[in-house]
């Protein structure tokens, strides 16, 4: 039996076995280590016969290579592609808010006249309440005094009404530097016949 296998190993090295026989031999060599040693020995003899130089090969050399290959980790996932995370809606909202603030801040920086303005009571009163509500619902909490938009908007009739109420309520229109004097004239009308 061994003689027959040794013969086939020799034929294998001389490339004389057909495909099926070579495959059968390799399967047997995988399960029987002495056949691998025989193949290595025959290979060395053949190399020595065919050339003048003989290099003694450590019998365990190929085994060590095989073992090293076996121990290489197997990457089931592609190492080139990073896992794609889907950003949460909160992160998207935050990013959008930061972008808006950056744009507004840049606009303010570019316009010094606007930069120093803060909205007064009167200006706030003249903003449509719907606009104020939107400002309140903004994810970026801003104190009412730091409202960036100081552009005058067309006041609604009710807006002027609240404005008049504010001035009739207390005297802060005088002490807190409300810049829009027009509503004050209504205060005058309020206290005159």
């Amino acid at each position, binding site marked *: 039996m061994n003689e027959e296998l040794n013969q086939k190993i020799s034929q294998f090295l001389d490339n004389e076995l057909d495909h099926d026989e070579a495959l059968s031999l390799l399967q047997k060599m995988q399960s029987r280590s002495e056949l691998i040693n025989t193949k290595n020995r025959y290979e060395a003899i053949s190399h020595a016969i065919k050339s003048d130089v003989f290099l003694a090969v450590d019998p365990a050399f190929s085994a060590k290579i095989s073992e090293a290959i076996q121990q290489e980790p197997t990457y089931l996932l592609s190492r080139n592609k990073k896992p794609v995370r889907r950003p949460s809606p909160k992160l998207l909202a935050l990013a959008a808010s930061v972008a808006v603030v950056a744009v507004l801040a840049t606009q303010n920086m570019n316009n010094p006249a606007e930069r120093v303005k803060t909205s007064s009571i009167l200006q706030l*009163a003249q903003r449509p309440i719907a606009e104020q509500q939107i400002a309140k619902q903004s994810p970026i909490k801003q104190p009412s005094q730091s409202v960036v938009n100081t552009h005058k908007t067309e006041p609604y009739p009710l807006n002027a009404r609240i404005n008049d109420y504010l001035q009739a309520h207390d*005297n802060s229109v005088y002490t807190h530097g409300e810049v829009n004097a027009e509503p004050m004239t209504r205060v005058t009308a*309020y206290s005159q016949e």
Partner: protein
Amino acid sequence: MTAVLKFFFLALFLSSGAVNAEDSSLTIPHNTNGKDVLIKMTQAMKTLNYQGTVAFLKNGRLEPMKYFHAVEKGVEQERLLSLNSPLREIVRDADRVSCLFKARHQLIVDHRPFERSFLIDIPANLDALDAIYNITVVGEEDVAMLPALVIAIQPKDNFRYARKIWVEKQHFLPLKVLVYNLANEAIEQLVFTELQLKETLPLVDVKFLNAVNPPPPVHPLPIQKSDQANFVLANLPQGFQELFFTRKPIHNSDEQVDHLLMSDGFASVSVYMENKNAASQPELYGQGSVQSIGTVNFISRTLGDFEFTVMGEVPAETVKLIADGIKLRDLKN
């Protein structure tokens, strides 16, 4: 040696405690009553001649002004000069407030019988506030390089804001006033950066304020009885009392508006009532929900053919409570 060191550190510890105790109690007499200090302050504000630079801070806006208080033969006059634009001069003679806008030479005259000072109004009867405020001396600090007593006016409920007043120790003039919201954040402040007492200060005649556009003559605000109002308030937080009621045109129209002003001594709330305006857009004002303009909270609601608005420098819960309690008066009865 160890015993000596122990004794040294013990003495050091006790002496530091003694210093702290001196800071907190010895310089403030134990019998110093916060209300007494405020009474003295009210008297000083009325009778002394003084001037200084005062900064008003509200809604994120800083407004520095020159302040003058003059008294001559019992007649008081308060005057403010703005240091920043819009330049204006404001004079209070009793209940009449005149404001000259210098750039436009425009004079505006207002009648405000319910206010006495641009700085702070202290109620005449502080004992009446015992049920709603604790008024105590809580410390001493320097303001404008002047030693001052710190008076805390702490509400006993959440329907009003806390205040602190820094009262100069020698002449009992107010140097600083702070208003705190329910989160104990300062929402309004006035502070003197310098204050001087004067033997005399001249009274300014408003006629000489050189207005190109003088206003029409001012007539006193017709104060009426609140029982003439078409509404009653069923929910009123403790301590709030009527200051005045009037029915006058407020807007640039002949439309009559009922205005009821109430105060608990420090905080004030106004209730306005006018006919429902078909052209108005009440939904824009979020009727039924409290809105804020700076430190003022207000809420609007419709009742029958009338629109009501409650506003004041009080917490949102307070204006909502008052608004919820508005009822139309049954005039037949």
